[in-house]
């Protein structure tokens, strides 16, 4: 799977590991910044806001903005503050239930 991404790796290819994003399997460079790695393989948006449901993706890449949140092991975390490790299971953060006005 190579979805169209507007982010390109310019360096040498490094060692890859397999992670899951939702139901799809991704091959990402081991040890690299998770947000960057997801951008390269075309993951976008990363999440939807709990209020309006608007799509969001990485904005600051320095742990300040929280627009790159993903859910890992049931915890919503900033992808830009994580490194790619083998076997990560990543989900889009669950949004507020519809019954919750």
């Amino acid at each position, binding site marked *: 799977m190579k979805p169209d991404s507007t982010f390109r790796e310019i360096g040498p290819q490094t060692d890859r590991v397999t992670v899951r994003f939702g139901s799809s399997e991704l091959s990402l460079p081991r040890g690299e910044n998770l947000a960057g790695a997801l951008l390269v393989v075309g993951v976008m948006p990363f999440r939807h806001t*709990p*209020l309006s449901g608007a799509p969001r993706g990485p904005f600051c890449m320095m742990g300040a903005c929280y627009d790159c949140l993903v859910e890992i*092991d*049931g*915890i*919503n975390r900033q992808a830009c503050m994580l490194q790619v490790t083998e076997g990560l299971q990543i989900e889009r953060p*669950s*949004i*507020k*239930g519809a*019954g*919750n*006005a």
Partner: protein
Amino acid sequence: MTSDYAIIGGGIVGLSTAWGLLKRGLRVTVLDGDDGSFRASRGNFGLVWVQSKGMNQPRYAQWSQASAAAWADFAAELGDATGHDLGLEQRGGYDLHFSEQSLEATVAKYEILKQKLGGNYPYEVLGHNALRLEEPAIGPRVVGAILHHQDGHANPLRLLRALADDVRRLGGVILNGKRVTRVDKADLFRISCDDGTEVEAGKTVLSAGLGAAALGPMMGFKAPIRPQRGQVMITEKLPKLINRPSLIARQVDEGGIQIGATNEEVGLDDTVTQPGLSGLAAEAIAAFPVLAKAQLVRSWGALRILSPDGLPIYQQSPDMPGAYLVTCHSGVTLAAAHARFLPDWLEGADAAPDLEVFSEARFNVS
């Protein structure tokens, strides 16, 4: 400028009272503090709550019940006028218990109060399994809960905003950033502020929260109030997890889980402490284990305004007739009472509620 009423304090108590007076066609000026003032109205937990209140003073339980009963209509009227949904839910609330002993002891106390209230105290006891049917996220350490059907919760910040909005719309004047330094009475009350502002009014209500401790004695009140810190925290917005509020946690209408609150006698210190947060977090996780994975997004310390017995004070000044002290630590629960019933008392109307037990006479030293 001259008003019928000058309200000192633009928090939920002052604004609810102002709103009620405006609805009666009276002219009202509200003097409000600044951005950094201690504001219980910005830091409270948001419960519209009956249970556990007035265990030793049934009149307080009744007053809370009357307000809770008036809340829906109050919220609807205020909501319609301003377009703000106050997030009111009155489907009952829990007192969660981690031991059978504490649960039984509380029920025993409720039974006594229930008798004093002529039976009007609709609660039921849910064991762990019954509670789990209502609250699937409840943890194994919770042995049961008292579900009180008169309890509920609302969005306190939207209440504050709606009041600020509607008091203006009704023609009330709100002066922000004011520090009242002096209150004099000749024919009219004259309220003076440190920036030179002066407001004249026929009557005045002191609802300045902790500010009343300093201003009260100048106006002939005892005003024996003290701050009590409550630390509160709130998580990121989550899918629906908790159906009914409790004293430990509630899910606010925006989605976050609000967790509270400590009771700390630390004076005018509204700092948040790590032991405070850790204790609250541990208790919330004991109640709802899934919260262990929730991210804490905000926390704050707010200062409750407590009288020696924890009850509200409603008192006309013996030295300055026409000046009233109105203070309580349950401004959200009592907002409807302050909007609907208190104006009658201030105006001396026939329909005025009997608030004698809340006078300062109870603080007389024998």
